[in-house]
């Protein structure tokens, strides 16, 4: 059968790693994957240089909304690393709480979308139903469902309301029960098993050589977890690092399910600690002295890395951001070649759960606008024209120039 190119993407939403997969298939078999990135490139590193540290934290939060707390977490670590800023114990617990709640929400999100990718919409709906209470807790704790804006250099920006603890416990109980059930179901469901077991294997050697991290590496038997290795806040709580040996999609899924259960345990410890640990939650830093700092955090998808170089002013000279997927995405080359197309998609999804497969575009140009609904169309055009005049003025933007011919 002849070779055929399948453009996958480019609408994959990521920071610098938004990609366009050009999958070459022979019949249904993947023979090569080319990745083209840069669709979502927004130049955070450059923008950050024009922002103060406090603003930078909110800026990096908007690198990505799925694990939106991990970037602020790492950025705050990096800034604190320059001067070895002490943060109050209560702030540490609040940070852990937010981080772990987010891990739950993020893993559930991935699980649901993974279900969606393999056409199991019921699994999607169910997991997202369990995810909803988590977001509601976030709304109660931080005021927003997704971008929590909780992090500051030297602590957190809001206190945790101890009165919420009785509301959170039932959610945790529910989650734990459902996750145990789900873990059992995943193990027993023959269709799911046959669909995921042995698919898209990433060997341990490949994982190390590609510098993979996070669940992707842990499912391949590489025992790394920044929370344990880097210590800092996480020295206060006990948890296990889940490591599985096989490196296939199934193991990646199981790692995530088990991590949710671990997260529930960690959050319980935080909730127990909150009434006991009172006091300040923000150490108001005066200055950040010249120097350089490295901060990292174990995001749901792996190690988030931030490097900040400071000159003593209140904005960074250089702010380097490395999201986990940047290291994990290239592992496709090792795990996808030679497997069927349908498997390739779930493998892509398993490595990098930012949902890469929901959108894509096609390259067909056509102009046969039979204006069936003339008035609505003209209405919208007129309105746009007016708005354009008001908002943009009449000067030509670079983008207009692109489209001129």
């Amino acid at each position, binding site marked *: 059968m002849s070779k055929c190119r399948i453009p996958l993407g480019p609408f994959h939403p990521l920071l610098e790693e938004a990609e366009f997969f050009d999958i070459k298939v022979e019949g249904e078999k993947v023979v090569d994957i080319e990745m083209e990135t840069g669709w979502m490139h927004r130049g955070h590193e450059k923008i950050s240089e024009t922002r103060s540290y406090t603003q930078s934290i909110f800026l990096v939060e908007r690198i990505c909304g799925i694990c939106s707390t991990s970037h602020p977490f790492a950025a705050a670590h990096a800034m604190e690393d320059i001067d070895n800023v002490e943060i109050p114990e209560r702030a540490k617990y609040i940070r852990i709480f937010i981080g772990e709640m987010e891990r739950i929400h993020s893993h559930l999100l991935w699980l649901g979308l993974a279900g969606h990718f393999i056409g199991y919409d019921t699994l999607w709906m169910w997991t997202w139903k369990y995810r909803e209470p988590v977001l509601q807790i976030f709304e109660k704790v931080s005021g927003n469902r997704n971008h929590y804006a909780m992090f500051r250099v030297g602590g957190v920006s809001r206190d945790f309301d101890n009165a919420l603890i009785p509301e959170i416990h039932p959610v945790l109980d529910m989650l734990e029960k459902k996750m145990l059930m789900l873990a059992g179901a995943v193990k027993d469901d023959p269709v799911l098993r046959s669909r995921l077991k042995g698919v898209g294997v990433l060997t341990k050697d490949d994982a190390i050589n590609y510098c993979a991290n996070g669940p992707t590496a842990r499912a391949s038997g590489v025992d790394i977890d920044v929370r344990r290795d880097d210590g800092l806040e996480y020295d206060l709580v006990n948890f296990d690092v889940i490591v599985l040996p096989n490196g296939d999609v199934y193991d990646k899924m199981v790692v995530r399910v088990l991590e949710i259960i671990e997260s529930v345990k960690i959050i319980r410890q935080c909730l127990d600690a909150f009434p006991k640990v009172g006091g300040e939650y923000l150490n108001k830093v005066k200055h950040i002295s010249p120097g350089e700092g490295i901060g990292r955090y174990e995001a749901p998808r792996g190690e988030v890395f931030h490097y900040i170089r400071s000159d003593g002013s209140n904005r960074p000279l250089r702010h380097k951001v490395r999201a986990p997927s940047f290291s994990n995405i290239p592992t496709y080359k090792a795990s996808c070649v030679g497997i069927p197309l349908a498997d390739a998609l779930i493998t892509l999804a398993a490595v990098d759960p930012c949902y890469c497969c929901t959108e894509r575009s096609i390259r*067909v140009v056509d102009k046969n606008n039979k204006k*069936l609904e003339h008035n609505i169309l003209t209405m919208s055009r007129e309105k746009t024209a007016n708005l354009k005049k008001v908002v943009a003025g009449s000067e030509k933007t670079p983008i207009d120039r692109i489209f001129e011919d």
Partner: protein
Amino acid sequence: MLKYLFYLLVFPGFLFASVFGLIVGWIERKVSARVQFRVGPPFFQNFYDVFKLWGKEIILIKNTPYFIFVIAPIIAFASVIMTSTIVGMSFFYHVGIGGDLIFIIYLMVIYSVCLILGASSTGNVYSSIGAGREMKMLISDELAFVLVILVPIIQAGYKIDLTQILAYQNANGMIIGSASGIIAFIVGILCLQAKMGLVPFDIAEAETEIVEGPLMEYSGPLLAFWKLAHYMMYVFLPMLLVILFWGGMSFASFGSIMAGIGKYLLIVVVMILIRNTNPRVRIDTAINFFWKWASPLALIAVILAIIGV
């Protein structure tokens, strides 16, 4: 003549099948929503959808055979109307045309072929992959489907008319009462799932893999044709199973009418539940499944039927 025109266009043909199909489509969406802890769409949702599509623009693609692109959904739609008329006639009026089972099998194939043709005419990668998959599905499920249909034919004494199969069942009890009947019925439901492109066999239309596969490039009224045809299949395919295995519907009493409707709805709900509790399988798994398991099973049923069990 006028009578047949009425059959074709009003009941149980075009008008009935489309209206009822849209309603069954609503049931499908509603039950799925319920399984997924959602509320689901309002009753008239599918009607709105189809009417809206009628008002949209049709986009034709440069440098492609427009003719095939346009004609494919219309032929498919026509073949679906024919099928539903034939099935409906024997379901409601107990009248048939000679050899209608053969006719039905061919009409079903025409539908799939139109889908493949329409999709390939667009030249879009996703659509062509969808077409390729549809072709593979057709190859894999067709044998099983024919074998399944063979069972009642054999049991009824090698009769290929639906009315005669019904008459046989009225006289000797339902075919599902026999061992071969049960096996064939189960395989039959799976075949329906594949024919209708429902999960786990919605490989050709896998939304997350190849967008909407064959239907990707269709828009406006042409898409409405496909959607309507799809929903109409919800009407006559389960009906066909009811006729073949469950003795159809008799209008003798209110109870028997309700029983007929009940049988029909039961099959629909089973299909919806299967759809909602399974992930999509891979194309090779599906082919394997149909060739290694479903078809041999159906063959066993046929053999059993020949022996007379």
